[in-house]
């Protein structure tokens, strides 16, 4: 789990550097600060389980098993990327890994996860679907329609709200009245629990129950993971126009990776040297990924006309 969190953190930081250096086209939404949610959830998932993700999806897909080299190649818009350069950061997907796509539309993945879960149930499989989304998505119709349908049909789906307190730049104090997002689960008679999204153990414990329920055929549930986005909405947004430095600083003190390291060392589960060794391995993996991406061919222009229809 530590390795996965480090992979996400370092991937995001390296991608940000490369983006600022002008090497990556398009948009980039960093999930730095939210790693514990992706990892705490996906640690429960088997390769056969499926997820839907968001525009801020790098962490989810890495935690679900994506390779860093093919992800980086996609960010570099190369033929070897997960989407052959047709998706980009916001659309990384690999059905073989159970990744039904990051998604550029806020809330868009929620009903898709419900349908995937229905398919699993119709076939009598013990696999589950997990839908990641942010607090902003909980104001969309797709969220409410999706949760209601999941509850009505009792499908094996776990809804994971990464509440990072901001819908792009709009504070949750402005965009919704509920104190806790999880309140909304009540409307659909879904079990709802709050997890500390900066503490991977808390996420792991809370989501574990929800996923076990789904796997046992006891229906969907809702988890609100309270987390925080250390960067702005996307690279290019410093995130300072609508958040105070003090506020960001308070959350940075609860950096999920720092907390995790401290706990591992304190409880004697790993030594600092072991963790640093993992960091070194991840850094090497990442540099290999960047090299792979840079050396990969660009897609041929005529491939733009492929993959529209089967």
């Amino acid at each position, binding site marked *: 789990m530590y390795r996965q969190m480090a992979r996400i953190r370092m991937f995001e930081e390296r991608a940000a550097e490369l983006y600022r250096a002008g090497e990556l086209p398009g948009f980039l939404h960093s999930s730095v600060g939210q790693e514990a949610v992706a990892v705490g959830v996906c640690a429960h998932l088997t390769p056969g389980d499926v997820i839907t993700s968001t525009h801020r999806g790098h962490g989810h897909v890495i935690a679900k098993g994506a390779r860093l080299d093919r992800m980086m190649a996609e960010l570099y818009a190369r033929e070897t990327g997960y989407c052959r350069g047709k998706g980009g950061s916001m659309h990384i997907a690999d059905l073989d890994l159970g990744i039904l796509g990051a998604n550029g539309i806020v809330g868009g993945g929620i009903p898709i996860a419900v349908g*995937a879960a229905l398919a699993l149930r119709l076939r009598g499989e013990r696999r589950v679907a997990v839908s990641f989304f942010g607090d902003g998505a909980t104001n969309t119709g797709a969220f409410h329609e999706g949760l*209601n349908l999941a509850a009505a049909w009792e499908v094996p789906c776990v809804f994971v709200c990464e509440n990072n307190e901001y819908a792009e730049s709009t504070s949750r104090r402005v965009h919704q009245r509920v104190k806790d997002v999880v309140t909304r689960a009540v409307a659909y008679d879904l079990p709802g629990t709050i997890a500390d999204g900066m503490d991977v153990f808390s996420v792991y414990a809370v989501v574990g129950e929800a996923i076990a329920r789904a796997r046992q055929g006891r229906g969907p549930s809702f988890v609100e993971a309270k987390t925080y986005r250390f960067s702005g909405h996307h690279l290019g947004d410093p995130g300072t126009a609508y958040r105070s430095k003090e506020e960001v600083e308070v959350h940075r003190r609860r950096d999920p990776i720092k907390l995790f390291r401290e706990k591992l060392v304190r409880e004697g589960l790993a030594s600092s040297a072991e963790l640093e060794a993992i960091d070194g391995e991840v850094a090497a993996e990442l540099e290999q990924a960047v090299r792979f991406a840079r050396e990969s061919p660009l897609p041929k222009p005529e491939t733009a006309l492929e993959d529209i229809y089967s």
Partner: protein
Amino acid sequence: MRKITYREAVREALREEMIRDARVFLLGEDIAEFGGSYKVTEGLLAEFGPERVRNTPISEAAIVGAALGAALMGMRPVAEIMYIDFIGIAMDQIVNQVAKVKYMFGGKARVPLVLRTQGGGGRSSGAQHAQSLEAWFVHVPGLKVVMPSTPYDAKGLLKSAIRDDNPVMFIEHKLLYATQGEVPDADYTVPLGVADVKRDGRDITVVATSRVVHLAMAAADRLATQGIEVEVVDPRTLVPLDEEAILASVKKTNRLVIAQEATPRCSVASEIAAIVTERAFDDLDAPIARVTALPTPVPFAPALEQHVLPDEEKLIAAVHAALQ
């Protein structure tokens, strides 16, 4: 050959494909006990049970999104949107998700999903229950669009649509459900992307879609008594569009009227006119004419609705004008 209604033809296609392939299931509003607003799915719940004939909440986005999720997992859902007018709620799922996942994922997804719906006016259903919105979907790469006009085509095309690995918008017409036509007992399909010449003629081509095919056939009967032989071409599928069949007819008759129930701006008729202009301009002896609804919402009052929608008289006038 036996005759059945368009409604029965659609139902037979659903039933036969559900028997043929256990991955096919239905979801939509009021399709189970109630049998659907237009009774297309009547009896299917009793035969296939509630897991495969699924009533949904009134949640069009969730219906389409759930169908997509199931399709990505290897099922072959047939979702019903009760009225095409209600599809606005689901447009994100259709346009941004269903149509694009395969492309965005670099080709690795298959989306065997049929979205059945019905549109069209003529029953005083009012502005939110009577539209012809096919052009919205024709515009979006990644979708196929089917508009059958007869029971034979409806059954054969729906079977093809269900067996297709792409998302298909299958747009029925509420006034056609009770119409009858010959449909064989044996299993058959009608391929997507192949037009049908519903009537041969040498003087002028009328390309018509959905219910307007029947108006064109009636108009052609009347024009024949005046010595004018109209060729009626029904594209049957709008995406993929059988351009060659339309061009072949235009090369034969040298005159073209395009007739549809939708409003004119940026419509299928406009698209066909553009294609023929680009590819067969020199074959035309007269300007292409479009017979469409007037560019208004569909009005409630029969007197107003009749004025707005295309009819035989408008078609006949357009044919005469093109032959001048």
